[in-house]
């Protein structure tokens, strides 16, 4: 087995069963693990000597969650609560749930009732992110989260520990940007499912260990000659694209994902925490103001579409796939404007709806095939 194959196998194992990795990590190190959604400050969890674990729902049949949510709620929220009720997150010592949309607002409230064994840690990020008042408010939220994490970990988070944590995460982000930019030249090695597995596993693994493995992978791929790709190249946009069926359709149709604009993937590492202040807590609070291009981040200019067009230009992609998480109203509000922008720029696009419980819609294959023939 080549070095590349070995590394890929490792990433796939972790991406497919993160529970096993996290439980082993807890057993081996004696450290605790804390879950987080979307853009919660993972640096604080890490600085408290705990493992940050990304929670993005999963493929699980919904039953117990039906007592908390009507059926028309997004499946990230619904499947996460279902998993929580079924005890699948019992290894977590807490979970940070933000309030960026109405489903998340109510999710936090339901979590504390439905999954009491995993402590709900509240995070309400300001909508007016770029104002000083917003930064100050977020700082106050982070102070409360820091207290909760210190209590759970039984330690005090020092400025030094937090600065170190920020450096580790900046290193992680830089490494991931390097990975995605190299990977786009090797679509025959880094297929869409492998690309996803590499990125996804970073949300569970201990960061320095993960950075080391990704760097090894990047070095090993770069040692290979770049080959001409005779398939199609696309950029995907949405909250997440975690569907084995979709990856299969891509691979059957020789479609490469050359860049993504997904909340679970590139949006996690698009920009770094800057040296905007001496106080590391303030640095973290200011980071939230620098993020852009996500349906959960207030932006009256809606720059997401422009950023997407730029990604298409930069990668020479043939088109865009809008991966709609079913019942995600923030994404539903963004879609028509992005669609219009893509049409005006004559960039072909295809729309696919995904549901974590039931898988993607049946017409996805036909639609993607037609799209691949058209571009």
């Amino acid at each position, binding site marked *: 087995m080549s070095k590349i194959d070995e590394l890929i196998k490792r990433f796939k194992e972790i991406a497919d069963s993160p529970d096993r990795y996290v439980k082993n990590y807890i057993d081996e190190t004696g450290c605790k693990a804390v879950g987080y959604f979307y853009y919660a400050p993972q640096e604080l969890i890490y600085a408290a000597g705990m493992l940050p674990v990304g929670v993005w729902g999963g493929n699980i049949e919904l039953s117990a969650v039906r007592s*908390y949510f009507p059926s028309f709620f997004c499946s990230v929220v619904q499947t996460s609560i279902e998993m929580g009720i079924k005890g699948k997150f019992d290894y977590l010592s807490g979970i940070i749930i933000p309030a960026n949309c109405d489903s998340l607002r109510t999710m936090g409230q339901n979590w504390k009732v439905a999954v009491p064994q995993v402590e709900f840690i509240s995070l309400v990020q300001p*909508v*007016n992110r770029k104002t000083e008042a*917003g930064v100050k408010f977020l700082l106050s939220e982070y102070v409360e989260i820091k207290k909760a994490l210190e209590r759970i970990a039984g330690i005090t988070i020092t400025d030094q520990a937090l600065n170190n944590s920020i450096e580790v995460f900046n290193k992680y982000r830089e490494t991931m940007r390097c990975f995605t930019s190299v990977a786009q030249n090797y679509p025959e090695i880094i297929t869409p499912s492998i690309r996803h597995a590499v990125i996804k596993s970073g949300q569970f693994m201990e960061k320095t260990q993960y950075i080391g493995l990704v760097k090894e992978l990047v070095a090993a791929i770069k040692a290979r000659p770049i080959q001409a790709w005779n398939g199609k190249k696309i950029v995907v946009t949405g909250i997440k694209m975690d569907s084995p069926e979709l990856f299969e359709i891509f691979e059957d149709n020789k479609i490469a994902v050359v860049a993504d604009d997904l909340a679970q993937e590139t949006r996690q590492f698009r920009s770094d925490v800057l040296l905007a202040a001496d106080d590391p807590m303030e640095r973290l609070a200011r980071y939230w103001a620098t993020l852009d291009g996500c349906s959960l981040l207030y932006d009256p200019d809606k720059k997401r579409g422009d950023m997407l067009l730029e990604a298409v230009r930069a990668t020479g992609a043939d088109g865009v796939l809008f991966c709609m998480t079913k019942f995600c109203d923030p994404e539903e509000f963004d879609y028509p404007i992005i669609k219009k922008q893509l049409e005006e720029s004559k960039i072909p696009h295809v729309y696919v709806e995904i549901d974590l419980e039931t898988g993607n819609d049946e017409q996805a294959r036909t639609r993607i095939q037609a799209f691949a023939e058209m571009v």
Partner: protein
Amino acid sequence: MNDQKEAKEIIRELMEKHYEDAIAAKKNGELIGWAASNFPQELAECLGLNIVYPENHAAAVAAKKAAPEYIAQAEADGYSNDICSYARINLGFAQLKTCAAQELPMPDYLLCCNNICSCMVKWYETLAKELKIPLFMLDIPYNTSYEVTPSRVEYIKEQFKLVISQLEVFTGKKFSEDRFKEVMEISSASGRAWRRAMDAMASTPSPMNGFEIFSYMGLVVCNKSRKETTDVLNQLADELESKIISGESSFKGEEKHRILSEGIACWPYLGHNLKTLGQYGINIVGAVYCKAFEKVYSNLDEMAVEYATVTNCVNLEKEVKMRTDIIKENNIEGMLVHYNRSCKMWDGFIYEMERRIAEETGIPIVSFDGDQSDPRIFSKAQFETRVQSLSEIMDQRKEARKGNR
């Protein structure tokens, strides 16, 4: 007394005037703002801005059965039918720009406030982009703790100041502290008058058919900072109080059962809902709105807290308390819940709320599926069956109570 118009009639006229004035202002070349229903009206009133409320407009359009055309337009533009129907009606209107059922002047700027839901942010962001006009955003963060934290009050107050200065620059109008004090007083007086009118429903039988709340609340949403609003709400409260004394009520027939109406009205079927409840002698004598519009305050800190403690902005425990208080105070025997397909914020924790309310008060709770303004969701048959069953349970409980005496 006889030659004086009833409050109900004056409220209807004031609402008509609200739209007529805005349309006239637009014709005169004045700037028009579209505002979220819970954007602090005091700020706009102080600056003398011409504001209309798309949520109120969407409800009016739906009540006049004109919603489908606008919903169809929004959906044709790519807006999913999963999106709030008020937003869809408004986004459709933003394209079509005219509506015979209720005209609305097109905006020059937008005033958004997200205390009632996060959906407002996406809706107004979309309008700003589609119409290429400025958006002034007031973020009232969701309260995960029972009380509004001091950091929230501080953040909200800073934004009041920011929005005021931004609006001064944009509109060229000046904010005056004296005028602000005056407006706060008027608003608070309206809040007190509203509370007095709503308190009248605590009386058994209630002097009012509860469906009237839905026609009165529009005025509070649109114009609570105006003297004429305070006056007419006081008149309404006076009328209701004299009806209590004379034993009259606008509820037709015997008030057999007293219920809490939960959720936004199902506007396209309001007449049907009224008739169905009427058949069983069921009167609405409480809704969470009764408390939501009682805002009374005398300074910026208190105003920030008031705007942060509206329904859908507070945590589960406080939401439950808002309802159990009304149930206890107004002698309520049952609860009818509208699972409003449009409102994820409302539906997202209503199941747990119901369990807690039932446990604390012991009243029967029955639900129906519907939508505030998309007529395709509601089913008359389901509503009738559910109301019938609620009525039967309440009858049984009443009999049991009699038997126990």
